């Protein structure tokens, strides 16, 4: 138990120092973590939770408006390696005329779109540069993997959350089950 206490205390110290430590100067390039604490956090899969500018209801758009993930908002996923996050311009394709009286729509129209400022969406998924993973959506789209396999039941949620932890084990299990390549260079290149 005593050893456990030490680990917890170390973890605490590390977590605290992560906050107090100044970020490394931007002109110094380093492929490693910016601090020991960030390495520890990364190891324990502790990552900053995304804070979104508005509580975007995925559910309303999928269930009520009957939009398909890959057709309107994340259409880049069928064209290239990345799904992309839509800009406020995409919102305004419909919300120029639909539900214009709702407070949130008025907020994105007046506070963002009309000022030429984009919604500061934060990424929910993604790999840190330190793990050296280059993920490409294209082969997964070609293999007709359902979005929910990796992103969970996001279609019936409000704000996007990290429903699935993309650990190496998660990827490898699925690759094994589907008989996809498990060569290191498939993902790490």
């Amino acid at each position, binding site marked *: 138990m005593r050893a456990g*206490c030490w680990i*917890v205390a170390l973890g605490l110290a590390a977590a605290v120092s992560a906050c107090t430590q100044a970020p490394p100067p931007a002109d110094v390039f380093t492929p490693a973590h910016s601090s020991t604490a960030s390495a520890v956090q990364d190891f324990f899969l502790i990552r900053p939770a995304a804070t979104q500018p508005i509580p975007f209801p995925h559910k309303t758009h999928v269930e009520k408006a009957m939009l398909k993930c890959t057709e309107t908002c994340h259409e880049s996923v069928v064209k290239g390696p990345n799904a992309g996050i839509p800009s406020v311009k995409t919102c305004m394709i419909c919300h120029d005329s639909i539900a214009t009286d709702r407070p949130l729509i008025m907020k994105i129209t007046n506070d963002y779109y009309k000022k030429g*400022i984009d919604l500061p969406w934060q990424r929910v998924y993604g790999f840190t540069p330190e793990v050296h993973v280059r993920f490409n959506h294209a082969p997964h789209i070609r293999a007709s993997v359902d979005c929910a396999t990796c992103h969970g039941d996001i279609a019936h949620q409000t704000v996007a959350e990290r429903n699935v932890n993309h650990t190496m084990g998660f990827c490898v299990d699925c690759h094994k089950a589907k008989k996809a390549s498990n060569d290191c260079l498939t993902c790490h290149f």
Partner: protein
Amino acid sequence: MSMDRRSFIKLTAVTGGATAIAACTTSNPENQLIRFVPDEDLTPGIAEIKNGVCPICRAGCGTTVRVMQGDAEVIRNGQHGVMTMSLAKKLEGNPSHPISQGALCPRGQASIQATYHPDRLIQPLKRRGARGSGDYQPITWDAAIAELVTQLDNIAGSGPQGLAVLTRPGASSRHDLFALFLEKFGAQAPIAYELFGDDVLRRASAISFGREQVPTFDFANARAVISFGADFLGTWGSPVSQMAGYAKMRGGRPGIRGTLIQVEPRMSLTGASADEWVAIKPGTEAVLAFGLANALGAKGLAQYTPAEVEKQTGVKAARVERLAAMLAEMKPAVAIIAGAPLAQVNGLSQALAVNVLNTTLGAIGAPGGLSFTPYVAPKRGARSLQTLASDVLSGKGTPVQALLIDGANPVHSTPPGWKVKDALAKIPFIASFGSFADDTSVMADLILPDHSALESWTDSRPESGTTKAIVSVAGPAMKPLHDTRATSDVLLDVAKKLKKPLAGMPDSFDAMLQASVGGDEPWGIATKQGWVEVKSGTRDSGLGTRSGSPEPRGASKPLPFTAAFDGEPGQYPFYFLPFSSQAFLDGSTAHLPWLQEMPDPMSTAMWSTWVEINPQTASKLGIGDADMVEIASAHGSIHAPALISPGIAPDVIAMPTGQGHETFTRYASGRGSNPVKVLAPVVEPETGALAWAATRVKVTRIGEPKGELIRYGGALREFEHHRG
């Protein structure tokens, strides 16, 4: 629930840790800047390949630009933020382009850094402090253009001849637009200055062959090439196309391997590739050329016997005979002259002597020889930079009231004797269009920064490097990152806003470009492939008919045949040879960090300047490797570390150009020293070109190594081995 002390501490630690982590997570670094709505619809992760034109030198290579979606930090409406936009990521050679043929030199590759440079000028600036202090205040484009218009209106009233434009040599629509602007304004055509200009070579071609132009060499079909000082594989002419031709000459024909003989006192990159390196006495190249021509049967050159050549040039008579026999046997053969042999008082005579040798070899207009690309030269004023400076200082002629600077940096690349900086200080108004504050533009009162080459329409009419008449053209590969404006648009705007608007200017720069390639159909081809062949009719395609003759015709006064050097040989015992840096050329690319960190291919030196000294000379003077030495001429002195090199004649001291900027971004300011600052203000008399290889110097050891010589590799292995 009961809790003992230990559990309480544990719990506190865990919750405390969680709180601390949660506190961190609220500041996700991904979104600390506001994000602007993107202008373009982009698919992330998909690259697009666009065409480009390399902006670095006059060769006019066509490039490909890999463009991908990315985030750029920009300022929009005074707000600092991030914007998702198409960004240029990588430059390569355009495979379809007749000059670059899919390749690009390191300077061209690095030119992408000019766009993303941290010290780029991102908005118009007006001088606030003293000239040269670099103290500027940002102003709006409207205010900047109004200021320029007011200044030009004043000159238009008092005498339009008071306007001058200083630019770099090269032919393009941008140059044509400046020339047109000046013509309509009533001023003289632009003055072009570059340290390593080819004016002497052009004049020699005009005298011998009727074409005032740099020739194109057919290396691919040559069997022997004798090069007098031309670093054609490194820095001179059209290096990418010449390298491609040279590769074919060496290994592109089964069973035939072409031979290269390099005649120069300091081994250049080209010299290092040659089969034979002839370390000739500087300024006597013409004698060797005549000696070879005589041995090959040219008439009227009987006095140039091998023995006489040996006496004057230091090249052994037997070697002269052997080289002549080799050239006679290995047909087709061609001779090239460029660089230091032309930067002499007798430079024109030397070029004419090589023209005679080429005529004797039958190389004119023949396969494996030299020819001239159909070409329209840009309009140039009769006034040279040197006369402009001396007129300003002496108050002779029409006083220059305003000077517009487009890309030239003469404060860095002229000898102190020309007093260019003093002259600039006396000109009442200077405006610069450059993207960086350099030694010259820091003297400007108004800076109107141009887009980078990747952000604007660019074109180039190559003077040599291909046998076809082509124009390289490219549209913007990406949108402008900053609040800059295309200089061509600024000129057209100013022309309209003057009190007496200039008539006869094109509607837009695009329209001008379109007209320059000859209409809609060639324009379609040009925008698709990045270049287009211009049909004869739009341009002079006639080839020169006159042949080289030992008696130069057309020269206005008798030409000196013997080289003369500034400095008493007793006091200044060494020939001083500045050479074009592989990374920086004359210094115009010293602000690009990739080029600063690129090891020089001969010495592996980087981030520095050095002085190449022969080992014998160094041991006589007590100079060790990397010791600090002083190079002094009658005109100035500089300090630099010594680099002991066997690839240089004992009586020659060589130094790369390009460093020693007083002002040129964080990467080049105050780095190394500038060899031009010890040069004598000597010119080739016929063309007025600076004779930059005609100065004598003395060398003194001044101290221990100071860590200024930074080398990627150690000493020269071959040399160490040779020394035992």
